[in-house]
């Protein structure tokens, strides 16, 4: 990619204020491994996450987050937030004929990987407590050809809430 395109993406990131959080020292960069977030994030990508959204409880549906694994506190997982507390989420797998739904309990979030066929996430182990979230991924740092902000969910798994704004 040309330097122009890289510079344009960089400026977009600065404008979205995520770089300011980085400068304040409340953020981290992480090397990711595994296929569960393909195609948005692939094996060995390095992403950049900020912690302020988590502390201000401003994590939203559709955000990609890094969280502590519920079964091993020394491991981290990177998934997309599909549902916040009170939201209705779909729990059935592809092979099911009937779609089953559940509601996310208070203080929890429902996470799913973008690569829904190859991801261990809330569909396997249920919703996880919000407090396990470490930060929100805002930028991809490496490889340089895909530097920049990350794309929306490719799976359309997010059920928009009925109440509230009519246009999203």
């Amino acid at each position, binding site marked *: 990619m040309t330097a122009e395109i890289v510079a344009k993406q960089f400026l977009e990131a600065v404008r979205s204020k995520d770089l300011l959080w980085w400068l304040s020292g409340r953020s981290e960069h992480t090397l990711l491994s595994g296929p569960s977030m393909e195609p948005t994030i692939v094996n060995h990508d390095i992403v950049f996450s900020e912690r302020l959204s988590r502390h201000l409880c401003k994590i939203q549906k559709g955000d990609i987050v890094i969280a*502590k694994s*519920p*079964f*091993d*506190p*020394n491991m981290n997982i990177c998934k997309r937030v599909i549902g916040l507390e009170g939201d209705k989420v779909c729990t059935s797998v592809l092979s099911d004929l009937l779609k089953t739904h559940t509601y996310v309990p*208070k*203080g929890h979030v429902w996470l799913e990987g973008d690569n829904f066929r190859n991801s261990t996430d809330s569909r396997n182990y249920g919703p996880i*407590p*919000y407090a396990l979230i470490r930060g929100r991924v805002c930028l991809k740092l490496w490889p340089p050809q895909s530097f920049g902000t990350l794309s929306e969910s490719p799976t359309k798994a997010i059920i928009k809430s009925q109440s509230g704004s009519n246009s999203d």
Partner: protein
Amino acid sequence: MAQQAGRRYLRAFVSGFFVAVPVTVTVLDRLAYVARVEGVSMQPSLNPEGGSEDDVVLLDRWSVRNFQVQRGDVVSVLSPRNPQQKIIKRVIGLEGDFIRTLSYKNRYVRIPDGHLWIEGDHHGHSLDSNNFGPVSMGLLHGRASHIIWPPNRWQRMKPSLPPNRGPLETEDDD
């Protein structure tokens, strides 16, 4: 003259403030934390008199950074129901233990990997694992090591399991 002296004091104060605040925040974040205990869920160990004066405990954050806790430790965890609240309870079981629960939906529970079973000492007046099940170790915040206030309650908190609360002995030992 007085104006210049005043400005110098202000500059000294501001530069001192900016050094003191990050050091304090780092200490609170990594080493130790002082917290007032509210409520009666840990009676009689904490707040035995109820309303008159709340205990203040020293929370050791350094020893939980590797998630090493023992059964009987009093720990503070981030609440699974409310991420902005911290609750203080006693660790009853570690991962792999079989627990007979008091008021949980299942009578017997095997604690999953990476989870803990926590209970308040005052059964029935405590929101703990009997309500929301095993809690993930990633939610561990600190271990209450000492009661530091009021002065007549100065003591070191030792890990001890309440009577009849603890993991069930299984036949095969590993």
